[in-house]
């Protein structure tokens, strides 16, 4: 425990999978076996399990905390959990499995570096799981670990494991994501979750935890495919009267002396200083909140964006992939408030171009999207937006559509079309 203060990095991952495949149990197991839970929390789980007649210790109760979730035995909303090993902090978004909670799954996956997909190995890859892996891939999650769960029920036979490997390999090829590692586990008994198991002598790969520790962390905000991006959040007025621009660095690092363009105005300028409350930085890495001083008195404000080359596109017309969450269908002619980076404007849906058939991974003609549908739309905006393709950058490539009357968030949008669907 003495190494607690050494430098740790941070991995965000989402757990996805179909109802009853054991997602929440696996996370419960991961937390219990890495000793993240306190004794009183374990006692509370045991107490709730016994009083609801579901055994001595139902590990899914570790994450399913809402009253309705425990009553119905399902996960409704994303539960965030935290674990740490001496070198890494994990932020875990345990996502719901039911179709009607796709919006919550998208919430969890949108910030994830990696997806941990739990599959009941005795049942194989279900449609719902394919759907979730597809949504995760759409949201930019390129790395997947598959936990082939309930191997104890399959008596650790190799056949169901092998056929699952075949299925997920084909799916990953279709989606264009990295080939997933498939780990045979029993979340119930703890085999191969944190502790290696002798139950499957034919498997010599890592445990789930070892795989999570080995995965590269970070990079979700920008894959290094674009230049530096600084959406301006706030103008800081100094006691001296000087104005500097606060925001979070994205895309690539920014440094004093960097030539940047203020967009959408298109004004060329140079970064004079990159400051923080703790002093100046020579290199401001992606993910760091900073305060940028420019060499001249270029007037800028919230919603503007400073960019270094390669530059983003300035446009008032987008083709975008959207996940629709509204109860009423999305159709042409509707208008919304659009929030993109730190800029808000009005958006007008020109067309619903197509609807994604998530099972066949093809785009079908369509003129409306129902709740939880994914599709491609064309969108006009009242003010220009400064965008990169979502596949190049998650921050400058994403937006939400907001109901102007109720302020409800009705859609998550990604600039560009799905790369895997034709």
């Amino acid at each position: 425990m003495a190494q607690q203060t050494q430098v740790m990095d941070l991995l965000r991952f989402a757990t996805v999978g179909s109802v009853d495949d054991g997602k929440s149990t696996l996370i419960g197991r991961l937390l219990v076996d890495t000793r993240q839970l306190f004794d009183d929390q374990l006692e509370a789980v045991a107490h709730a399990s016994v009083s609801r007649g579901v055994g001595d210790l139902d590990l899914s109760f570790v994450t399913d905390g809402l009253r309705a979730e425990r009553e119905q035995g399902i996960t409704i909303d994303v539960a965030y959990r935290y674990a740490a090993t001496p070198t890494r902090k994990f932020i875990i978004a345990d996502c719901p499995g039911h179709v009607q909670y796709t919006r919550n799954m998208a919430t969890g996956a949108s910030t994830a570096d990696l997806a941990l997909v739990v599959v009941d190995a005795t049942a194989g890859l279900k449609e719902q799981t394919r759907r979730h892996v597809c949504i995760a891939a759409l949201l930019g999650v390129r790395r997947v670990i598959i936990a082939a769960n309930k191997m104890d029920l399959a008596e650790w036979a190799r056949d169901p494991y092998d056929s699952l490997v075949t299925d997920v390999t084909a799916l990953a090829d279709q989606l264009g994501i990295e080939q997933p590692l498939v780990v045979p586990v029993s979340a119930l008994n703890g085999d191969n979750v944190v502790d290696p198991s002798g139950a499957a002598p034919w498997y010599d790969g890592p445990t789930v935890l070892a795989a999570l520790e080995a995965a590269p962390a970070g990079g979700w905000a920008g894959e290094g495919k674009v230049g530096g991006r600084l959406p301006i959040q706030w103008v800081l007025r100094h006691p001296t009267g000087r104005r500097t621009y606060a925001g979070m660095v994205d895309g690539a690092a920014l440094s004093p002396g960097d030539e940047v363009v203020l967009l959408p105005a298109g004004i060329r300028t140079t970064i004079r200083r990159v400051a923080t409350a703790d002093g100046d930085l020579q290199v401001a890495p992606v993910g760091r909140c900073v305060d940028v001083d420019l060499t001249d008195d270029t007037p800028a404000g919230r919603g503007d964006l400073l960019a270094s080359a390669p530059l983003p596109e300035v446009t008032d017309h987008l083709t975008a992939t959207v996940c629709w969450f509204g109860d009423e269908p999305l159709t042409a002619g509707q208008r919304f408030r659009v929030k993109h980076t730190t800029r808000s404007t009005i958006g007008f849906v020109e067309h619903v171009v197509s609807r994604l058939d998530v099972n066949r991974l093809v785009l079908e003609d369509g003129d409306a999207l129902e709740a939880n549908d994914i599709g491609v739309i064309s969108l006009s905006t009242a003010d220009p937006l400064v965008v990169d393709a979502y596949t190049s950058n998650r921050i400058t490539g994403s937006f939400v559509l907001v109901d102007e009357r109720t302020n409800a968030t009705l859609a998550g949008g990604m600039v560009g079309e799905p790369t895997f669907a034709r």
Partner: protein
Amino acid sequence: MTTSSAAPSARVDHLDLLESHAIFIIREVAAECERPVLLFSGGKDSAVLLHLAVKAFAPALIPFPVMHVDTGHNFAEVISYRDRQAANAGARIVVASVQASIDAGRVMDPGEGASRNRIQSTTLLDAINEHSFDAAFGGARRDEDKARAKERVLSFRDRFGRWDPRRQRPELWQLYQGKVNPGEHLRAFPLSDWTELDIWQYIERERIELPSIYFAHEREVVLRDGMLLAVSEWVSASGDEVAERLTVRYRTVGDAIGTGAVRSEATTVAQIIEEIAVARVSERGATRGDDRFSETAMEDRKREGYF
């Protein structure tokens, strides 16, 4: 990281990432909402929150006031600390008094010797209405409780101050969406992804001052319902209870009647971090009487408008 070619100084550890994320959220809420307020109890989480708010806007002053919901059952050290910290930050302080809510007949006094934790919700919501606040920053963390673990960073409250866990706004990427209609408000939780250990490591790194009750000291306490409660004008030994002088510290700061102390010799932040690393009882389980009544105590209180 994506900056592998950069100088070693570009290395970012988990505390830097948590800090930047929190500062980003604070600035977004300040920019999108008309009248935010920062809830400040004098506890360690709100101390970190205030510190981050100051950093988010330095060298300018923070562009919103600080509010304390005062149960009237206070540790004296915490009140003097609160006033000092607000003054240091240059922030205006608003005090919303639970006693005033009781006197005005808005809530029932739970009685002598009973915690006023639950009835704070009414005082908080009344103050939010009175000042037309449309966003209230809180120091809550998702690792504290299973209902909090489900809550969004920007958590919507309807006209009645209620949280509806089944109808939360999707919160994708870093697109924190802070618009509300008149009468509604947001709770903003910039420390959502921090754990108790992160908080203490950050307090150590940033040398954040805390009220003295967080560090080991001698205090007269009485063991009640498994908690060590400070003997005070509201708590004294009754029945079989015996008041003892023990060396204790607090892991959380709340209503002086409902918050328990833990036995500890830790007098520095480094010693507290060592203690937490091996602790087997959660901070709420060890010290908060109000979370023990039912398995969904926090969810139920949050639905009513609690912090």
